[in-house]
């Protein structure tokens, strides 16, 4: 069935059509959440929440963007909300730490931890250090490879803002990268100007 037909069925409230349609995007949605949170536990929780949100909101999709870009918009907003919500709770973290708790790396198994190569783990680590806004723009542009116009739609801002945010984010990323001793090793073999 064509995507547009499926979308129309979803908008009429057909859950089977929704499952068929979103099965094509589940990996993208999961990976987007994974880039934000850096672990499977959160990617699964936020990803599931995103699916429910998409189900509730699909009626609002009006074809002004591609469906995929619209999905990015919903998922990115959800991830940003979640990050903000967590930030508001941060005053309790010290208390937890006093009790011996540490933020979970949340790899469910050694196999999962090993799934991320050293390189990915390092990128993920640096992304987690960046402000949410910068992390978002790097995920959308440099990792996911969206176009400037698509990013402007996802973030609800103009192209100028996208570009200036991107250059700030890239600079911040490079600064963090430069402090990683591992980067020099990883960079070897790459330099081929």
């Amino acid at each position, binding site marked *: 069935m064509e995507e547009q037909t499926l979308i129309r069925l979803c908008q009429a409230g057909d859950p089977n059509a929704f*499952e068929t349609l*979103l099965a094509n995007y589940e990996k993208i949605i999961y990976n987007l959440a994974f880039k934000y949170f850096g672990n499977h*536990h959160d990617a699964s929780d936020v990803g599931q929440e995103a699916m429910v949100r998409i189900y509730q909101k699909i009626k609002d999709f009006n074809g002004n963007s591609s469906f995929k870009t619209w999905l990015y918009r919903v998922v990115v907003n959800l991830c940003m909300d979640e990050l903000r919500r967590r930030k508001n709770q941060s005053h309790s973290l010290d208390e937890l730490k006093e009790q011996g708790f540490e933020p979970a790396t949340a790899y469910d198994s050694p196999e999962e931890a090993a799934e991320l*190569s050293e390189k990915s783990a390092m990128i993920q680590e640096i992304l987690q250090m960046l402000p949410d806004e910068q992390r978002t723009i790097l995920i959308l542009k440099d990792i996911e490879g969206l176009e400037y116009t698509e990013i402007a739609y996802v973030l609800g801002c103009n192209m100028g803002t996208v570009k200036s945010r991107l250059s700030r984010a890239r600079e911040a990323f490079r600064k963090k*990268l430069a402090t990683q001793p591992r980067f020099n090793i990883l960079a070897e073999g790459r330099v081929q100007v």
Partner: protein
Amino acid sequence: MKCSTVYKYLTTEWEPSVALDEEVQNHLAGCSLCRAEQTQIEGAFTLLSSMPQVEPTAEFRAGWRNRVREEAAKATVVPEKRLKWNSWLKPAYSLAFLFIAVVAVIGYQNSVHAPKNEALHMAEKGPAVSQEQTMVLRSAAVDVTDTADTALYELKLVEVGPRSRDVQRIIRNFRSSHEEGIVFSHKAKNEEWTLFRDLSFEDAERLRKELEGLGARVEVKPLTR
């Protein structure tokens, strides 16, 4: 061409897939500083763009489908068919968790000036220790603005009772309606905690009553910190 112009071009316009502007190329040929900058920019970009995709977990694949079906059922007033321990259980634990789970909810209530909904809550889940039909729920409140005034209590679900699926559903709904938050692990204790917001003592009490209404056996006792 000035170094600053080249830098701006490299950081805003250029991407490794884009051929370099000829003027910039000429500048780079004679300026080692900008060349070093370009190499670094390219390195960072290559790293980001080559980041591999991860495979979604089975928990996610099954979980979102279940949740969407539940949403659909809500809308059509058809009774819920599939009830699963999904989002709050890690796949490795889920089988065992059908028999036993440890959940703790900890929160604090602020006095006077802080709004009531600033209560923070944590839920704990740990791995199964036996196959008994037992589940422990602990609920506690901590006033972090005045630690001298700390109050903690434990809500323990001793027996799931005959309607374990409904009990599971109630607990899952409880967690989702109170927005499951950050996950913390305590390696020494082999426990995991999740932080919640907007949870009051009344909410925890309501949970107790709901569980008892399903025939579960619940014990509540105060704890000291």
